């Protein structure tokens, strides 16, 4: 087992189920991504020592913070954690500077003011150190919270939806600041967010969380293009997920049968011939042909269909294409409106599309129902994250 700066495996059955396992290396940002109520905050609280799971193991920088088998559970005060709360949880009666100094319990009093001011300057709040939190904007409060979290020289930095309470313009600025700041951080950073785009932008790795269970951890683009299960595919917004059956394996491709249509997919020899599987394709894997240049390439899966829905959304158009005119063979994609206009693509029009074989990703079939098991996730035990880790 590789040593990671942060290794988390926790489980509990009540009050809300939790089965999570993930790792994060020093200097890396891991985004815990999941919808509201998926358990992101609970996980961060477990790491911080604010909640105690029924079973689990948390190791940070070689130190065991939690080991329920050994009955080890360090209190929050004994874990060097920097936690930025979703609502920042600043001490309302203390100035920005005093808020930051409050976390310097182990720093000599004479040194605290200098360090607090340096931290506030680092988060672009120089000159506002005597302001009370109530006199700061939401973005400024977030910066104070980050400075306070860093003031303890934490071994891990936990960010609980730190951008949720700021407006869009401020959020963009804070994204840039975090991206800049993280280059100088040598501790693992765990970012909880429900915004997949934010996670992909800021994190080295993402870990998909749903109903308290971690489903897949890996590089953002990889998880989004190679989801481990149909559930992950849905959670990361893959819009084309269909059932098919494996027909054959040929070289680096796997041939599948989709409603009677043969498709080339990226090789997945782990699935036996004849097995029912699901295939997923990101919307950018659907190439709509130009009228004057239909695809003839091998492994591009050229198909014919009709545009069942054409919906302008800003400068883009959202398309639903029924392959061979069949509604159960719906492909979803989007394209710039001007491209659609140039190619005379509109509702009811016949179009040619290609599905890039290298983008067609095969997954285990999963019956409908959110609670169904997912490929390599955690049903009865909490496995090491390597078992659900993808690269």
């Amino acid at each position, binding site marked *: 087992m590789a040593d990671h700066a942060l290794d988390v495996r926790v489980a509990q059955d009540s009050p809300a189920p939790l089965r999570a396992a993930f790792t994060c290396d020093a200097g890396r940002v891991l985004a815990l991504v999941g919808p509201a109520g998926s358990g992101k905050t609970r996980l961060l*609280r477990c790491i*911080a*020592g*604010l909640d105690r799971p029924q079973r689990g193991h948390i190791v940070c920088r070689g130190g065991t913070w939690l080991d329920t088998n050994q009955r080890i559970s360090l*209190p*929050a*005060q004994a874990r060097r*954690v*920097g*936690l930025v*709360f*979703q*609502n920042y*949880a*600043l*001490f*309302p*009666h203390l100035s920005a500077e005093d808020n930051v100094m*409050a*976390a310097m*319990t*182990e720093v000599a009093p004479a040194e605290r003011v200098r360090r607090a001011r340096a931290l506030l300057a680092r988060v672009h709040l120089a000159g506002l150190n005597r302001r*009370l*939190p*109530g*006199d700061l904007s939401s973005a400024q409060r977030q910066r104070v919270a980050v400075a*306070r*979290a860093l*003031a*303890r020289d934490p071994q891990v930095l936990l960010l609980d939806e730190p951008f949720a309470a700021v407006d869009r313009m401020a959020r963009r600025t804070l994204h840039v600041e975090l991206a800049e700041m993280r280059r100088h951080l040598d501790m693992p950073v765990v970012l909880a967010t429900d915004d997949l785009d934010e996670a992909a932008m800021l994190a080295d790795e993402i870990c998909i969380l749903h109903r308290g269970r971690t489903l897949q951890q890996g590089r953002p683009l990889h998880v989004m293009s190679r989801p481990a299960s149909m559930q992950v595919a849905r959670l990361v917004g893959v819009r084309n997920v269909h059932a098919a059956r494996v027909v054959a394996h040929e070289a680096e491709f796997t041939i599948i049968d989709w409603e009677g249509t043969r498709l080339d997919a990226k090789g997945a020899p782990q699935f036996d011939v004849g097995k029912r599987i699901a295939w997923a394709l990101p919307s950018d894997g659907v190439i709509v042909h130009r009228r004057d240049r239909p695809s003839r390439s091998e492994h591009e899966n050229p198909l014919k269909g009709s545009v069942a829905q054409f919906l302008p959304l800003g400068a883009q158009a959202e398309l639903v294409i029924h392959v061979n005119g069949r509604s159960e063979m719906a492909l979803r994609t989007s394209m710039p409106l001007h491209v659609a206009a140039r190619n005379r693509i509109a509702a009811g029009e016949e179009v040619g599309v290609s599905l890039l074989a290298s983008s067609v990703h095969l997954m285990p079939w999963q019956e409908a129902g959110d609670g169904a098991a997912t490929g390599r996730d955690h049903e009865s035990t909490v496995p090491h994250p390597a078992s659900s880790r993808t690269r």
Partner: protein
Amino acid sequence: MDWSALAVSLKLALWTAAILAPIGIIVGRVLAWRAFRGRTLVEALLALPLVLPATVLGYYMLAATGADSPVRAVTDSLLRKPLVFTFAGLLVASVVVNLPFAIQPMQRAFEAISMDVRDAAKCCGMRPWSIFTRIEFPLAWRGIASALVLTFAHTLAEFGVVLMVGGNIAGETRTASLAIYDRVQAFDDRAAGTMAATLLFTSLAAIIAVYVIRARPHVRR
């Protein structure tokens, strides 16, 4: 003007507030943040003096400290004199009557401190006593102070239980409110009026103090 009665009233109010300060902080804090079995019953019992006639409370206190009562045996051995018709007995009754006036505002003050703020203090490495002194008390002190001022003012105004338990002994258990009653019975309107005005302005000052204390400067308007 019965100065000794006013002195008894002030002494009783100060002692009541002093005793209820730690009780209110501890009980208010527990009720604000902890869930436990029987919590509703505890809250109901603590609120009972708000609706119960003071004479009922006084009656039960007299019954509890009656000649055959085990409570009396204990208090007699501790105080070496009966609890009823003494200042100590009056103080016990006053503390009981004022429990909701002290505890409820303090409970509300602690409830207003979010769990995240207390958790943030833990994540900052603060120990429990440090969290109380540096975070909780500075945030709750307005509620605590206003609770104590209310307790003080309410004790000054107490009549029924004082009469039942204290017995109206001059210099010992006769409070200002009892003295006013006595003066009215004796047709001494001038003395009654002076004492009534003194209590009126004292109570008004206390209520104004409560409103001033409750203004929260660190909340953005």
